[in-house]
Protein backbone atom coordinates (compact mmCIF):
# COMPACT_ATOMS: atom_id res chain seq x y z
CA UNK A 1 0.00 0.00 0.00
CA UNK A 2 1.22 3.47 -0.78
CA UNK A 3 2.38 5.48 2.24
CA UNK A 4 -0.20 8.14 1.44
CA UNK A 5 -3.05 5.61 1.64
CA UNK A 6 -1.81 4.29 4.97
CA UNK A 7 -1.65 7.80 6.38
CA UNK A 8 -5.19 8.53 5.22
CA UNK A 9 -6.55 5.35 6.84
CA UNK A 10 -4.75 5.94 10.12
CA UNK A 11 -5.80 9.59 10.23
CA UNK A 12 -9.23 8.36 11.32
CA UNK A 13 -7.63 7.01 14.48
CA UNK A 14 -5.71 10.15 15.41
CA UNK A 15 -7.07 12.75 17.76
CA UNK A 16 -6.23 16.41 17.98
CA UNK A 17 -5.63 17.33 21.60
CA UNK A 18 -5.28 20.97 22.65
CA UNK A 19 -2.00 21.93 24.30
CA UNK A 20 -3.00 24.69 26.72
CA UNK A 21 -5.82 26.72 28.31
CA UNK A 22 -8.14 24.03 29.61
CA UNK A 23 -11.49 24.35 31.36
CA UNK A 24 -11.34 21.45 33.83
CA UNK A 25 -14.41 19.48 34.91
CA UNK A 26 -14.11 17.01 37.76
CA UNK A 27 -15.62 13.55 38.04
CA UNK A 28 -18.08 12.58 40.80
CA UNK A 29 -16.42 9.18 41.16
CA UNK A 30 -12.78 10.18 40.64
CA UNK A 31 -12.94 13.02 43.17
CA UNK A 32 -14.68 10.79 45.73
CA UNK A 33 -12.57 7.66 45.39
CA UNK A 34 -9.32 8.86 43.80
CA UNK A 35 -8.94 12.53 44.75
CA UNK A 36 -5.15 12.23 44.62
CA UNK A 37 -5.43 11.52 40.90
CA UNK A 38 -7.14 14.83 40.17
CA UNK A 39 -4.68 16.61 42.46
CA UNK A 40 -1.79 15.08 40.51
CA UNK A 41 -3.25 16.12 37.15
CA UNK A 42 -3.63 19.74 38.22
CA UNK A 43 -0.20 19.87 39.85
CA UNK A 44 1.52 18.27 36.86
CA UNK A 45 -0.20 20.49 34.32
CA UNK A 46 0.28 23.74 36.19
CA UNK A 47 3.57 23.25 38.05
CA UNK A 48 5.52 20.86 35.82
CA UNK A 49 4.29 21.79 32.33
CA UNK A 50 3.30 25.37 33.14
CA UNK A 51 -0.13 25.06 31.52
CA UNK A 52 -3.24 27.07 32.21
CA UNK A 53 -5.98 24.85 33.70
CA UNK A 54 -9.02 26.49 35.24
CA UNK A 55 -11.65 24.92 37.50
CA UNK A 56 -14.88 26.82 38.01
CA UNK A 57 -16.26 25.94 41.48
CA UNK A 58 -19.80 26.39 40.17
CA UNK A 59 -19.65 23.41 37.80
CA UNK A 60 -21.74 20.48 38.99
CA UNK A 61 -22.33 16.85 38.16
CA UNK A 62 -23.05 16.26 34.48
CA UNK A 63 -25.87 13.97 35.77
CA UNK A 64 -24.41 11.16 33.63
CA UNK A 65 -24.91 8.41 36.20
CA UNK A 66 -28.53 9.51 36.56
CA UNK A 67 -28.93 9.54 32.77
CA UNK A 68 -27.54 6.03 32.40
CA UNK A 69 -29.61 5.01 35.43
CA UNK A 70 -32.58 6.24 33.35
CA UNK A 71 -33.86 8.79 35.87
CA UNK A 72 -32.58 11.85 33.95
CA UNK A 73 -34.05 12.63 30.50
CA UNK A 74 -31.87 13.37 27.49
CA UNK A 75 -33.15 16.97 27.23
CA UNK A 76 -32.21 17.52 30.87
CA UNK A 77 -28.66 16.22 30.65
CA UNK A 78 -28.10 18.14 27.41
CA UNK A 79 -29.04 21.35 29.21
CA UNK A 80 -26.91 20.56 32.28
CA UNK A 81 -23.93 20.01 29.99
CA UNK A 82 -24.82 23.20 28.11
CA UNK A 83 -24.58 25.01 31.46
CA UNK A 84 -21.01 23.70 31.83
CA UNK A 85 -20.26 25.05 28.37
CA UNK A 86 -21.78 28.37 29.42
CA UNK A 87 -19.48 28.54 32.46
CA UNK A 88 -16.58 27.76 30.12
CA UNK A 89 -17.58 30.55 27.74
CA UNK A 90 -18.04 33.03 30.59
CA UNK A 91 -14.57 32.11 31.92
CA UNK A 92 -13.00 32.68 28.49
CA UNK A 93 -12.05 29.07 27.65
CA UNK A 94 -12.57 27.01 24.48
CA UNK A 95 -10.87 23.71 25.37
CA UNK A 96 -12.52 21.36 27.82
CA UNK A 97 -10.65 18.71 29.86
CA UNK A 98 -12.94 16.06 31.33
CA UNK A 99 -11.91 13.88 34.27
CA UNK A 100 -14.57 11.18 33.88
CA UNK A 101 -15.18 8.63 31.12
CA UNK A 102 -18.94 8.56 31.77
CA UNK A 103 -19.02 12.36 31.41
CA UNK A 104 -16.76 12.18 28.36
CA UNK A 105 -19.15 9.74 26.71
CA UNK A 106 -22.07 12.00 27.58
CA UNK A 107 -20.33 15.01 26.05
CA UNK A 108 -19.55 13.09 22.85
CA UNK A 109 -23.14 11.84 22.59
CA UNK A 110 -24.54 15.33 23.09
CA UNK A 111 -22.20 17.08 20.68
CA UNK A 112 -22.84 14.45 18.01
CA UNK A 113 -26.61 14.76 18.60
CA UNK A 114 -26.39 18.52 18.10
CA UNK A 115 -24.35 18.03 14.91
CA UNK A 116 -26.81 15.55 13.41
CA UNK A 117 -29.97 17.21 14.70
CA UNK A 118 -29.39 20.99 14.87
CA UNK A 119 -32.96 21.52 16.11
CA UNK A 120 -31.89 19.79 19.34
CA UNK A 121 -29.09 22.32 19.76
CA UNK A 122 -31.57 25.18 19.29
CA UNK A 123 -33.92 23.60 21.79
CA UNK A 124 -31.12 23.21 24.33
CA UNK A 125 -30.18 26.88 23.90
CA UNK A 126 -33.78 27.82 24.63
CA UNK A 127 -33.98 25.56 27.68
CA UNK A 128 -30.74 26.87 29.16
CA UNK A 129 -31.69 30.48 28.58
CA UNK A 130 -35.11 29.94 30.13
CA UNK A 131 -33.69 28.12 33.17
CA UNK A 132 -30.57 30.20 33.83
CA UNK A 133 -30.35 33.10 31.39
CA UNK A 134 -26.99 31.73 30.19
CA UNK A 135 -25.63 31.27 26.68
CA UNK A 136 -23.02 28.79 25.54
CA UNK A 137 -20.63 27.80 22.78
CA UNK A 138 -19.70 24.23 21.89
CA UNK A 139 -16.04 23.58 22.87
CA UNK A 140 -13.45 23.85 20.12
CA UNK A 141 -11.47 20.98 21.59
CA UNK A 142 -12.65 18.23 23.92
CA UNK A 143 -10.19 15.95 25.70
CA UNK A 144 -10.46 13.35 28.39
CA UNK A 145 -7.70 14.12 30.88
CA UNK A 146 -5.99 10.86 29.89
CA UNK A 147 -5.73 12.22 26.33
CA UNK A 148 -3.68 15.09 27.73
CA UNK A 149 -1.39 12.80 29.75
CA UNK A 150 -1.06 10.68 26.58
CA UNK A 151 -0.08 13.79 24.61
CA UNK A 152 2.70 14.52 27.11
CA UNK A 153 3.72 10.87 27.68
CA UNK A 154 7.15 11.35 26.12
CA UNK A 155 7.84 14.44 28.22
CA UNK A 156 6.95 12.32 31.25
CA UNK A 157 9.29 9.58 29.99
CA UNK A 158 12.08 12.18 29.67
CA UNK A 159 11.55 13.31 33.27
CA UNK A 160 10.96 9.78 34.62
CA UNK A 161 12.56 8.77 37.90
CA UNK A 162 11.27 5.20 37.58
CA UNK A 163 10.44 2.98 34.62
CA UNK A 164 7.90 0.20 34.22
CA UNK A 165 10.64 -2.40 34.55
CA UNK A 166 10.90 -5.20 37.08
CA UNK A 167 14.20 -4.35 38.72
CA UNK A 168 14.83 -7.95 39.74
CA UNK A 169 14.41 -9.48 36.30
CA UNK A 170 15.13 -6.47 34.10
CA UNK A 171 11.97 -7.31 32.13
CA UNK A 172 9.18 -4.86 31.26
CA UNK A 173 6.21 -5.02 33.61
CA UNK A 174 3.07 -6.70 32.23
CA UNK A 175 0.30 -4.15 32.27
CA UNK A 176 -3.40 -4.70 31.66
CA UNK A 177 -5.06 -1.58 30.30
CA UNK A 178 -8.77 -0.93 30.83
CA UNK A 179 -10.05 1.78 28.51
CA UNK A 180 -13.64 2.11 29.77
CA UNK A 181 -16.55 1.50 27.40
CA UNK A 182 -17.81 5.07 27.09
CA UNK A 183 -14.41 6.50 26.09
CA UNK A 184 -14.63 5.46 22.45
CA UNK A 185 -17.06 2.57 21.90
CA UNK A 186 -19.91 5.00 21.21
CA UNK A 187 -18.20 7.67 19.14
CA UNK A 188 -14.78 6.28 18.17
CA UNK A 189 -13.42 9.43 16.55
CA UNK A 190 -13.20 11.16 19.96
CA UNK A 191 -10.77 8.57 21.36
CA UNK A 192 -7.06 8.12 20.72
CA UNK A 193 -7.00 5.09 18.39
CA UNK A 194 -10.79 4.96 18.15
CA UNK A 195 -12.71 1.91 19.27
CA UNK A 196 -10.59 -0.61 17.37
CA UNK A 197 -7.09 0.49 18.39
CA UNK A 198 -7.46 2.49 21.60
CA UNK A 199 -3.97 3.54 22.50
CA UNK A 200 -4.52 6.19 25.12
CA UNK A 201 -3.21 3.95 27.92
CA UNK A 202 -1.10 1.64 25.76
CA UNK A 203 0.87 4.66 24.56
CA UNK A 204 1.66 5.64 28.14
CA UNK A 205 2.63 2.09 29.11
CA UNK A 206 5.06 1.55 26.25
CA UNK A 207 6.54 5.06 26.54
CA UNK A 208 7.29 4.42 30.20
CA UNK A 209 8.95 1.04 29.61
CA UNK A 210 6.14 -1.47 30.17
CA UNK A 211 4.47 -4.09 28.04
CA UNK A 212 0.74 -4.15 27.28
CA UNK A 213 -0.99 -7.45 28.01
CA UNK A 214 -3.33 -8.67 25.26
CA UNK A 215 -5.86 -11.08 26.73
CA UNK A 216 -9.20 -12.44 25.47
CA UNK A 217 -11.54 -10.21 27.47
CA UNK A 218 -9.43 -7.08 27.09
CA UNK A 219 -12.31 -5.00 25.73
CA UNK A 220 -15.05 -6.42 27.94
CA UNK A 221 -16.91 -3.99 30.21
CA UNK A 222 -15.56 -3.67 33.77
CA UNK A 223 -19.06 -4.62 34.94
CA UNK A 224 -20.38 -1.26 36.18
CA UNK A 225 -23.64 -1.46 34.23
CA UNK A 226 -25.03 1.61 36.07
CA UNK A 227 -28.34 0.25 37.52
CA UNK A 228 -26.65 -3.17 37.70
CA UNK A 229 -24.40 -1.74 40.41
CA UNK A 230 -26.47 1.09 41.83
CA UNK A 231 -29.18 -1.31 43.04
CA UNK A 232 -27.99 -3.90 45.53
CA UNK A 233 -30.13 -6.71 44.09
CA UNK A 234 -28.35 -6.42 40.72
CA UNK A 235 -24.72 -6.42 41.83
CA UNK A 236 -24.18 -10.02 40.75
CA UNK A 237 -24.10 -8.66 37.17
CA UNK A 238 -21.35 -6.22 38.05
CA UNK A 239 -19.25 -8.72 39.99
CA UNK A 240 -19.66 -11.49 37.39
CA UNK A 241 -18.45 -9.32 34.54
CA UNK A 242 -15.43 -8.16 36.53
CA UNK A 243 -14.62 -11.77 37.43
CA UNK A 244 -14.83 -12.70 33.74
CA UNK A 245 -12.11 -10.15 33.00
CA UNK A 246 -9.83 -11.15 35.85
CA UNK A 247 -10.13 -14.86 35.09
CA UNK A 248 -9.19 -14.08 31.49
CA UNK A 249 -6.17 -11.94 32.36
CA UNK A 250 -4.83 -14.16 35.17
CA UNK A 251 -2.75 -16.56 32.98
CA UNK A 252 -0.87 -13.54 31.58
CA UNK A 253 0.40 -12.64 35.07
CA UNK A 254 -0.23 -8.91 35.01
CA UNK A 255 1.83 -6.82 37.41
CA UNK A 256 -0.92 -4.22 37.60
CA UNK A 257 -4.05 -2.89 35.91
CA UNK A 258 -4.10 0.64 34.48
CA UNK A 259 -7.51 2.29 34.08
CA UNK A 260 -8.89 5.20 32.11
CA UNK A 261 -12.29 5.42 33.80
CA UNK A 262 -12.66 6.04 37.54
CA UNK A 263 -15.60 3.62 37.63
CA UNK A 264 -13.47 0.83 36.14
CA UNK A 265 -10.81 1.60 38.72
CA UNK A 266 -13.23 1.35 41.60
CA UNK A 267 -14.84 -1.88 40.43
CA UNK A 268 -11.63 -3.66 39.48
CA UNK A 269 -10.17 -2.75 42.87
CA UNK A 270 -13.20 -3.40 45.09
CA UNK A 271 -14.50 -6.53 43.37
CA UNK A 272 -11.09 -8.17 43.87
CA UNK A 273 -11.58 -7.61 47.60
CA UNK A 274 -15.09 -9.06 47.32
CA UNK A 275 -13.90 -12.17 45.48
CA UNK A 276 -11.11 -12.75 47.97
CA UNK A 277 -13.53 -12.39 50.86
CA UNK A 278 -16.32 -14.49 49.36
CA UNK A 279 -14.33 -17.28 47.74
CA UNK A 280 -10.68 -16.76 48.64
CA UNK A 281 -9.85 -16.14 44.97
CA UNK A 282 -6.91 -13.95 44.00
CA UNK A 283 -5.85 -13.14 40.46
CA UNK A 284 -2.22 -12.08 40.85
CA UNK A 285 0.96 -14.04 41.34
CA UNK A 286 2.25 -15.26 44.71
CA UNK A 287 -1.18 -15.27 46.33
CA UNK A 288 -1.56 -11.53 45.88
CA UNK A 289 -4.27 -9.44 44.28
CA UNK A 290 -3.49 -7.16 41.34
CA UNK A 291 -3.02 -3.43 42.11
CA UNK A 292 -5.32 -1.22 40.03
CA UNK A 293 -4.01 2.26 39.25
CA UNK A 294 -5.39 5.33 37.53
CA UNK A 295 -3.25 6.85 34.77
CA UNK A 296 -2.60 9.86 37.00
CA UNK A 297 -1.36 7.63 39.82
CA UNK A 298 0.95 5.82 37.40
CA UNK A 299 2.29 9.01 35.85
CA UNK A 300 2.90 10.33 39.36
CA UNK A 301 4.83 7.20 40.36
CA UNK A 302 6.93 7.33 37.18
CA UNK A 303 7.77 10.97 37.90
CA UNK A 304 8.74 10.18 41.50
CA UNK A 305 5.77 11.70 43.35
CA UNK A 306 5.20 10.39 46.88
CA UNK A 307 2.76 7.41 46.48
CA UNK A 308 0.89 8.55 49.58
CA UNK A 309 0.26 12.01 48.08
CA UNK A 310 -1.24 10.21 45.08
CA UNK A 311 -3.68 8.35 47.34
CA UNK A 312 -2.58 4.77 46.61
CA UNK A 313 -3.18 3.89 50.26
CA UNK A 314 -6.93 4.44 49.80
CA UNK A 315 -7.44 1.53 47.40
CA UNK A 316 -8.52 -1.84 48.81
CA UNK A 317 -5.69 -3.58 46.95
CA UNK A 318 -2.48 -2.05 48.21
CA UNK A 319 0.33 -1.27 45.77
CA UNK A 320 3.49 -2.11 47.71
CA UNK A 321 4.25 -5.23 45.60
CA UNK A 322 4.34 -3.00 42.51
CA UNK A 323 6.35 -0.25 44.21
CA UNK A 324 8.95 -2.87 45.18
CA UNK A 325 9.13 -4.29 41.65
CA UNK A 326 9.74 -0.81 40.26
CA UNK A 327 12.25 0.02 42.98
CA UNK A 328 10.25 3.01 44.14
CA UNK A 329 11.50 4.52 47.39
CA UNK A 330 8.67 5.18 49.83
CA UNK A 331 8.25 5.85 53.51
CA UNK A 332 5.82 3.36 55.13
CA UNK A 333 5.56 5.69 58.12
CA UNK A 334 4.15 8.47 55.94
CA UNK A 335 1.36 6.35 54.53
CA UNK A 336 -1.43 7.35 56.89
CA UNK A 337 -0.42 10.84 57.87
CA UNK A 338 -2.35 14.06 57.46
CA UNK A 339 -1.25 16.93 55.23
CA UNK A 340 0.57 18.49 58.21
CA UNK A 341 2.21 15.22 59.26
CA UNK A 342 -0.07 14.09 62.07
CA UNK A 343 -0.41 10.31 62.45
CA UNK A 344 -3.83 8.90 61.55
CA UNK A 345 -5.20 5.50 62.61
CA UNK A 346 -3.98 2.53 60.55
CA UNK A 347 -6.77 0.83 58.55
CA UNK A 348 -7.02 -2.93 58.97
CA UNK A 349 -7.70 -5.89 56.68
CA UNK A 350 -6.59 -4.35 53.39
CA UNK A 351 -5.42 -6.53 50.50
CA UNK A 352 -1.69 -7.04 49.77
CA UNK A 353 -0.92 -5.16 53.01
Amino acid at each position, binding site marked *: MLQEGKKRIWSDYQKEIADDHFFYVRS*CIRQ*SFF*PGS*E*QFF*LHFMKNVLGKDVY*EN*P*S*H*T*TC*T*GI*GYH*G*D*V*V*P*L*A*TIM*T*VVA*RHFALMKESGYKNIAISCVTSFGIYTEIIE*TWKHLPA*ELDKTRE*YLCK*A*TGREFDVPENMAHTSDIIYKYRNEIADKAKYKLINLQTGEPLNVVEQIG*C*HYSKMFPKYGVGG*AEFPNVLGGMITSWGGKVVDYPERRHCCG*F*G*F*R*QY*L*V*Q*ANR*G*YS*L*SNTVKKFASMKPFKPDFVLTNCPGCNMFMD*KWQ*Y*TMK*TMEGTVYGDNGESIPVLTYEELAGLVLGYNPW*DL*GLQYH*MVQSEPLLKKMGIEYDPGDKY*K*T*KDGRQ*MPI*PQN*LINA
Partner: protein
Amino acid sequence: MQNYHEMLMQDIRFGEGLNACMNCGVCTAICPAAEFYDYDPRKIVDLVQSGDNVGIEKLLKSETIWYCGECMSCKTRCPRGNTPAFIVMSLRSLSQKLGFFTESEKGRQQFAIKRTVGENIFKYGYCVAAYAVSPEMHLEQGPIWQYVLENSKDVYERMGGHVDELGAGPLRKIPEDAKEELKKIFEVTGGTELFDDIERHSKKKASEMGLQFSGQGIDNEYFIEVFTANKKDHHT
Protein backbone atom coordinates in the same frame (compact mmCIF):
# COMPACT_ATOMS: atom_id res chain seq x y z
CA MET B 1 -54.44 0.84 23.09
CA GLN B 2 -52.00 3.65 22.38
CA ASN B 3 -49.60 3.39 19.46
CA TYR B 4 -46.38 2.69 21.32
CA HIS B 5 -44.22 2.64 18.21
CA GLU B 6 -45.28 6.19 17.43
CA MET B 7 -44.58 7.22 21.01
CA LEU B 8 -41.11 5.66 20.80
CA MET B 9 -40.45 7.59 17.61
CA GLN B 10 -40.76 10.81 19.62
CA ASP B 11 -37.52 9.84 21.39
CA ILE B 12 -34.59 10.80 19.17
CA ARG B 13 -32.55 7.90 20.57
CA PHE B 14 -35.08 5.48 19.11
CA GLY B 15 -34.86 6.99 15.63
CA GLU B 16 -31.07 7.24 15.80
CA GLY B 17 -30.69 3.77 17.30
CA LEU B 18 -32.85 1.82 14.87
CA ASN B 19 -32.18 1.57 11.18
CA ALA B 20 -32.99 -1.77 9.56
CA CYS B 21 -31.95 -4.67 11.79
CA MET B 22 -30.98 -7.82 9.86
CA ASN B 23 -31.07 -10.04 12.94
CA CYS B 24 -27.42 -11.06 12.81
CA GLY B 25 -27.15 -11.18 16.62
CA VAL B 26 -23.75 -9.51 16.93
CA CYS B 27 -25.22 -7.24 19.62
CA THR B 28 -26.15 -10.29 21.68
CA ALA B 29 -22.73 -11.86 21.17
CA ILE B 30 -20.94 -8.78 22.53
CA CYS B 31 -23.44 -7.98 25.32
CA PRO B 32 -22.32 -8.35 28.98
CA ALA B 33 -25.98 -8.44 30.06
CA ALA B 34 -26.71 -11.35 27.71
CA GLU B 35 -24.02 -13.37 29.44
CA PHE B 36 -25.52 -12.79 32.86
CA TYR B 37 -29.26 -12.48 32.34
CA ASP B 38 -31.84 -14.25 30.20
CA TYR B 39 -31.44 -11.40 27.76
CA ASP B 40 -31.18 -11.05 24.00
CA PRO B 41 -30.99 -7.51 22.58
CA ARG B 42 -31.45 -8.92 19.06
CA LYS B 43 -34.96 -10.04 19.97
CA ILE B 44 -35.83 -6.62 21.41
CA VAL B 45 -34.72 -4.83 18.24
CA ASP B 46 -36.56 -7.37 16.08
CA LEU B 47 -39.76 -6.86 18.04
CA VAL B 48 -39.77 -3.06 18.05
CA GLN B 49 -38.95 -2.82 14.36
CA SER B 50 -41.92 -5.09 13.62
CA GLY B 51 -44.18 -2.46 15.19
CA ASP B 52 -46.13 -5.18 17.04
CA ASN B 53 -48.06 -2.98 19.45
CA VAL B 54 -49.16 -5.78 21.77
CA GLY B 55 -45.62 -7.13 21.88
CA ILE B 56 -44.20 -3.68 22.64
CA GLU B 57 -46.63 -3.18 25.52
CA LYS B 58 -45.57 -6.54 26.93
CA LEU B 59 -41.95 -5.44 26.62
CA LEU B 60 -42.63 -2.14 28.38
CA LYS B 61 -44.03 -4.08 31.35
CA SER B 62 -41.32 -6.74 31.32
CA GLU B 63 -38.15 -7.45 33.28
CA THR B 64 -36.29 -7.68 29.97
CA ILE B 65 -35.75 -3.99 29.22
CA TRP B 66 -34.08 -3.47 32.62
CA TYR B 67 -31.28 -6.02 32.07
CA CYS B 68 -29.08 -3.83 29.83
CA GLY B 69 -26.06 -2.20 31.56
CA GLU B 70 -25.80 0.63 28.99
CA CYS B 71 -22.13 -0.15 28.34
CA MET B 72 -22.95 0.69 24.68
CA SER B 73 -20.66 -2.04 23.33
CA CYS B 74 -23.46 -2.91 20.88
CA LYS B 75 -23.11 0.49 19.21
CA THR B 76 -19.55 -0.25 18.15
CA ARG B 77 -20.30 -3.65 16.70
CA CYS B 78 -23.64 -3.42 14.86
CA PRO B 79 -22.89 -3.79 11.13
CA ARG B 80 -26.05 -1.79 10.29
CA GLY B 81 -25.31 1.15 12.57
CA ASN B 82 -28.06 0.36 15.07
CA THR B 83 -27.70 0.97 18.78
CA PRO B 84 -29.81 -1.54 20.71
CA ALA B 85 -28.90 0.20 23.99
CA PHE B 86 -30.42 3.47 22.71
CA ILE B 87 -33.59 1.54 21.85
CA VAL B 88 -33.63 0.10 25.37
CA MET B 89 -33.14 3.58 26.84
CA SER B 90 -36.14 4.87 24.89
CA LEU B 91 -38.22 1.86 26.02
CA ARG B 92 -37.26 2.55 29.63
CA SER B 93 -38.24 6.20 29.31
CA LEU B 94 -41.62 5.30 27.86
CA SER B 95 -42.18 2.58 30.46
CA GLN B 96 -41.67 5.15 33.22
CA LYS B 97 -43.83 7.76 31.52
CA LEU B 98 -46.72 5.29 31.25
CA GLY B 99 -46.22 3.79 34.71
CA PHE B 100 -45.55 0.30 33.29
CA PHE B 101 -42.18 0.06 35.05
CA THR B 102 -43.77 -0.92 38.34
CA GLU B 103 -45.08 -4.13 36.76
CA SER B 104 -41.65 -5.79 36.98
CA GLU B 105 -39.22 -6.38 39.83
CA LYS B 106 -36.34 -4.82 37.91
CA GLY B 107 -38.47 -1.91 36.71
CA ARG B 108 -39.57 -1.04 40.25
CA GLN B 109 -35.91 -0.43 41.07
CA GLN B 110 -36.19 2.95 39.30
CA PHE B 111 -37.65 4.25 42.53
CA ALA B 112 -34.45 3.31 44.39
CA ILE B 113 -32.26 4.98 41.76
CA LYS B 114 -34.40 8.13 41.87
CA ARG B 115 -34.26 8.29 45.68
CA THR B 116 -30.46 7.85 45.74
CA VAL B 117 -28.53 9.07 42.67
CA GLY B 118 -31.44 11.22 41.45
CA GLU B 119 -31.90 13.10 44.69
CA ASN B 120 -28.14 13.43 45.25
CA ILE B 121 -28.15 15.77 42.25
CA PHE B 122 -30.30 18.34 44.07
CA LYS B 123 -28.95 17.69 47.57
CA TYR B 124 -25.25 17.82 46.77
CA GLY B 125 -24.87 18.84 43.12
CA TYR B 126 -23.22 15.45 42.49
CA CYS B 127 -24.69 12.12 41.34
CA VAL B 128 -22.23 10.37 43.59
CA ALA B 129 -20.37 11.92 46.51
CA ALA B 130 -18.22 10.14 49.07
CA TYR B 131 -20.52 11.00 51.97
CA ALA B 132 -23.54 9.60 50.07
CA VAL B 133 -21.98 6.13 49.62
CA SER B 134 -22.76 4.40 52.90
CA PRO B 135 -20.71 1.34 53.86
CA GLU B 136 -23.90 -0.42 55.00
CA MET B 137 -25.36 -0.27 51.49
CA HIS B 138 -21.99 -0.95 49.84
CA LEU B 139 -20.29 -3.83 51.64
CA GLU B 140 -18.11 -4.44 48.58
CA GLN B 141 -16.31 -1.15 49.23
CA GLY B 142 -14.50 -2.90 52.07
CA PRO B 143 -12.82 -1.62 55.22
CA ILE B 144 -10.88 1.11 53.39
CA TRP B 145 -14.12 2.88 52.56
CA GLN B 146 -15.30 2.86 56.17
CA TYR B 147 -11.88 4.29 57.05
CA VAL B 148 -12.04 7.03 54.41
CA LEU B 149 -15.45 8.15 55.63
CA GLU B 150 -14.40 8.10 59.28
CA ASN B 151 -11.30 10.17 58.49
CA SER B 152 -12.62 12.08 55.51
CA LYS B 153 -11.43 15.56 56.47
CA ASP B 154 -7.82 14.42 56.85
CA VAL B 155 -7.93 12.03 53.88
CA TYR B 156 -9.25 14.58 51.39
CA GLU B 157 -7.25 17.51 52.76
CA ARG B 158 -4.00 15.75 51.83
CA MET B 159 -5.43 15.24 48.32
CA GLY B 160 -6.28 18.91 47.83
CA GLY B 161 -9.90 18.70 48.98
CA HIS B 162 -11.98 20.94 51.19
CA VAL B 163 -14.91 18.65 51.93
CA ASP B 164 -18.20 20.49 51.92
CA GLU B 165 -16.52 23.92 51.75
CA LEU B 166 -17.00 26.49 49.03
CA GLY B 167 -14.26 26.97 46.42
CA ALA B 168 -12.45 24.71 43.95
CA GLY B 169 -11.27 21.19 44.74
CA PRO B 170 -12.59 17.66 45.17
CA LEU B 171 -15.83 17.26 47.11
CA ARG B 172 -16.21 21.03 47.35
CA LYS B 173 -19.61 22.31 48.39
CA ILE B 174 -21.58 23.16 45.28
CA PRO B 175 -22.90 26.72 45.70
CA GLU B 176 -26.63 27.05 46.41
CA ASP B 177 -27.19 29.18 43.30
CA ALA B 178 -25.67 26.43 41.13
CA LYS B 179 -27.95 23.81 42.70
CA GLU B 180 -30.87 26.15 42.15
CA GLU B 181 -29.97 26.36 38.45
CA LEU B 182 -29.90 22.55 38.28
CA LYS B 183 -33.42 22.45 39.73
CA LYS B 184 -34.65 25.00 37.19
CA ILE B 185 -33.07 23.01 34.35
CA PHE B 186 -34.90 19.90 35.58
CA GLU B 187 -38.18 21.82 35.71
CA VAL B 188 -37.83 23.28 32.22
CA THR B 189 -36.64 20.11 30.48
CA GLY B 190 -38.92 17.42 31.92
CA GLY B 191 -36.53 16.08 34.55
CA THR B 192 -38.82 17.05 37.43
CA GLU B 193 -41.78 15.52 35.61
CA LEU B 194 -39.92 12.20 35.31
CA PHE B 195 -39.06 12.28 39.02
CA ASP B 196 -42.74 12.96 39.79
CA ASP B 197 -43.87 10.11 37.50
CA ILE B 198 -41.54 7.67 39.26
CA GLU B 199 -42.79 8.80 42.68
CA ARG B 200 -46.48 8.72 41.77
CA HIS B 201 -46.46 5.27 40.19
CA SER B 202 -44.21 3.83 42.92
CA LYS B 203 -46.51 5.09 45.67
CA LYS B 204 -49.44 3.43 43.95
CA LYS B 205 -47.52 0.16 43.59
CA ALA B 206 -46.43 0.25 47.24
CA SER B 207 -50.07 0.49 48.21
CA GLU B 208 -50.96 -2.46 45.96
CA MET B 209 -48.15 -4.50 47.50
CA GLY B 210 -49.15 -3.51 51.03
CA LEU B 211 -45.77 -1.94 51.76
CA GLN B 212 -45.13 1.17 53.81
CA PHE B 213 -44.12 4.15 51.67
CA SER B 214 -42.84 7.55 52.76
CA GLY B 215 -42.64 10.78 50.80
CA GLN B 216 -38.90 11.05 51.20
CA GLY B 217 -35.74 9.16 52.11
CA ILE B 218 -34.86 5.50 51.95
CA ASP B 219 -36.05 4.34 55.35
CA ASN B 220 -39.31 2.78 54.21
CA GLU B 221 -40.46 -0.74 53.34
CA TYR B 222 -40.99 -0.08 49.65
CA PHE B 223 -37.46 1.29 49.14
CA ILE B 224 -35.91 -1.67 50.95
CA GLU B 225 -38.05 -4.08 48.92
CA VAL B 226 -37.14 -2.65 45.51
CA PHE B 227 -33.48 -2.14 46.44
CA THR B 228 -32.96 -5.72 47.62
CA ALA B 229 -35.64 -7.97 46.08
CA ASN B 230 -34.28 -10.64 43.77
CA LYS B 231 -36.55 -13.50 42.83
CA LYS B 232 -33.56 -15.08 41.15
CA ASP B 233 -35.31 -16.18 37.97
CA HIS B 234 -33.63 -13.60 35.77
CA HIS B 235 -30.93 -15.90 34.50
CA THR B 236 -30.62 -18.47 31.76
